[in-house]
C-alpha cells in the first residue's frame, strides 16, 4: 500500500478500544500488550506521556533524516541560485566585488536551508502520521472524544494476527481498563 494512503483494517470491525484511568495504568498496560506480541495497535493520550513509546516498543522516528535531506536541498538551492544569478545569468560587477563572491551568499544559503528543513519537518511529520485524515473509525466512539482532554486509551486493530474480539477484550479488561468497546469499521 502506498506510504501516504490511510491504512485501515478491512472487515466488519475496526478493533477494540479500551480506556485507562491514569498515565501509569496505561503505561503498564502498554508493556503487557507489547509483550503479548500485538503489532497493529496504538495508545492514545491527551499529551505525550514520557517513555510510552518505549513501553510500546516503537522505533525512533526517521523524521530527522527527512529534515537533513530537505535542509541540504534548500541550502544547495539557495547557494546555486545566487551563483547562477551573479556569475552566470546576470554577470554585473557591483562595488568591484568578484562575480562569485561566495561569502556574501552565506546568509541567504543559511536562510533557505532552514526554510526547506522546516517544511521537511512539518510535512514530513504529517506524511509519516498520515495526516490530514479527517475521518477515522475511532471517532465513532463517544468516549474517545475525551482523548484530547483527560482520557487514556489503547486501541488494538482487527487485522492484528493475534486479534480476537472476545479474548482481546478480556485481556484489556484484565490489564485494568475502565471500559472496553468493540468498534465497527
Amino acid at each position, binding site marked *: 500500500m502506498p506510504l501516504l494512503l490511510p491504512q485501515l483494517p478491512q472487515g466488519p470491525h475496526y478493533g477494540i478500544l479500551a480506556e485507562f484511568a491514569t498515565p501509569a495504568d496505561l503505561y503498564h498496560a502498554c508493556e503487557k500488550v507489547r509483550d503479548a506480541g500485538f503489532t497493529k495497535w496504538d495508545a492514545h493520550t491527551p499529551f505525550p506521556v514520557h517513555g510510552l513509546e518505549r513501553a510500546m516498543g516503537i522505533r525512533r522516528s526517521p523524521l530527522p533524516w527527512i529534515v537533513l535531506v530537505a535542509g541540504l536541498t534548500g541550502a544547495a538551492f539557495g547557494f546555486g541560485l545566487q551563483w547562477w544569478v551573479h556569475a552566470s545569468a*546576470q554577470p554585473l560587477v557591483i562595488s568591484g566585488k568578484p562575480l562569485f563572491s561566495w561569502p556574501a551568499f552565506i546568509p541567504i544559503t543559511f536562510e533557505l536551508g532552514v526554510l526547506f528543513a522546516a517544511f521537511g519537518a512539518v510535512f514530513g511529520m504529517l506524511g509519516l502520521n498520515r495526516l490530514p485524515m479527517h475521518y477515522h473509525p475511532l471517532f465513532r466512539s463517544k468516549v474517545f472524544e475525551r482523548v484530547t482532554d483527560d482520557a487514556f486509551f489503547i486501541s488494538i486493530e482487527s487485522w492484528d494476527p493475534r486479534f480476537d474480539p472476545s479474548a482481546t477484550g478480556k485481556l484489556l479488561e484484565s490489564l485494568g481498563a475502565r471500559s472496553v468497546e468493540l468498534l465497527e469499521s
Partner: protein
Amino acid sequence: MAQTEAELLDNPVAGNPTLILRSPDFHAITEVVAEAVERPTPSGWWFFFLPALALLGLLGVAVSWLFWEGIGIWGLNVPVGWAWDITNFVFWVGIGHAGTLISAILFLFRQKWRTSINRSAEAMTIFAVMCALLFPGIHVGRVWVAYWMFPVPNQMSLWPNFRSPLLWDVFAVSVYGTVSVLFWYVGLIPDLGTMRDRAKTRIRKIVYGFLALGWRGSVRQWNHYETAYLVLAALATPLVLSVHSVVSMDFAVSVLPGWHTTIFPPYFVAGAIFSGFAMVVTLMVICRTAFRLDHIITLRHFDYMAKIMLVTGTMVGYAYATEFFTSWYSGNPYELFTFMNRALGPYSWAYWTMITCNVISPQIFWSKKARTSIPILFALSIVINIGMWFERFVIIVTSLHRDFLPSSWGYFRPTVWDVSCLLGSFGLFFTMFCLFVRFLPMVATSEVKTVLPQADPHGQHGPERQIKGRAARPALGAPTPEGAS
C-alpha cells in the same frame, strides 16, 4: 497544604519547582483554557478589540494615503532617508524574538516553565513579524514593484543583488515569519483537536475539525510529532539569532559612522530579546487578569521573565558603553563626533530617554519584590518598550542627521502620517492578538498537562524530598499515581 505563591517562590530549589498552582487535574486545565474560547464574547474583550480595530483603520487610511501620494507625506528627507519606517520595522522584528526564544531556545534547554506562556508568545511573534514586514513593504514608495525584492524571473531579465544586506533581510524576515507560523501551527494541532472534540456548534466542529487535521493523540503520532517539534526548535534557534543579526547588518555593513560597528549583531539580538520579553509581560499581565489564569501563568513565570529582562537590559547597556569606547579608541574623528553628538547633540533627549528606560529602569529587577509585583512589571514592560523603540530611533536618525558635509545637516521631525503608521501598526498587532485569544486556545494545554505531577507514568519514585518540613507535593487529582512499581 495551602501553599501561597509567595511561599513557593521562597525556595526556588524545592525539588521540581511547582509551575502550576492549586494542583488542577487534566480536565481542569482543558476547561479553563477552552472555556475562554467557548463562552460568549465578554464585554471586556470589546474594550480592547474596538480601540485596536480603530487604530487598524487608521493604518488603512495612512497606508492608502501613502500609496496615493508617496513617501513625501512622511517627515523623512535627505539627509535622514530612513526614519520611523525602519525604526518601526526593527522595533517589531525585535518584539518577535522573545516568542521564538521562549518556544525554541527554552524548549531545547528543557525550561518547563515555558509551557504556560509559549503559545501566546509565539502568536505575539507572528503578529509582530506581520507588523514588521509591513514597513519595508510600504517604505519602498512604489509598492507595485515591491516584487523586485524577490528573485522572480521578469521581462527585464533583472535579478536582485544577493550581496546586499537589504536582500538578506528580505529572506531572513520572511523565512522567520514562515517558520514561526509553521512552529506555531504544529504546536496548535493537539489543542485544535481538543477544541474539535468539545465543539457544540456545527461551524466550530467543521472549522476546528478541519484545522485539527484528524489528530487522534496516538502515541505513534506523538512519536513523529515530538521529533518534529524538537527539530523545529533546533532550526528556529539559529534562525532567530540570525534574523536580528541580519537586520543589524542593514546598518553595520554600511560605512556610516554610528552604524559601521561589529558589535551590532549580538547587541541587536540582546535588545530584541529584551524588548520581546517586555511585550510578553505586557500581554501576559492582561491575559492572566482578564482570563483568570493566575494559577497557570504564575508569579514564578514573571520572576523568570524579569530576570531575563534584567540580564538583556544590562547587556544592552554594556553595548551602549562599548560603542562609546570603540568610537574613542578608533581615533576616527567622525566616529567620535557621531557618538558625542548622539549623547549631547540635538537628539540628546532621545538618547537619554533610551538610557533611562533601557539601562536604568530594569535595574529595579534586582529586587525580588519588583520581579513579583504585577503593577511594577506591567509599568516597566511598557517603559522598556518605549526605550527600545527609542534605541532604534537613536541609532537610525542620529547617525544620519549629521552628514559628512555640514551643508547637508538636517533635523528629522515626524508628520502626522508617521505617527499614524506607528499607532496603526499597534492597531494591527492588538487586533490580531484579540482575535487570537478569542478564537484559539491561548495556553498550550497539551504541554501544560505534561508538567503536572500526575502526568509522570512512574509517579513519584525515588526518595521523597522534604524541604523545610514541607511534604513533597501531593499528586492531587491523580487517583493512585503509584499504580504499580
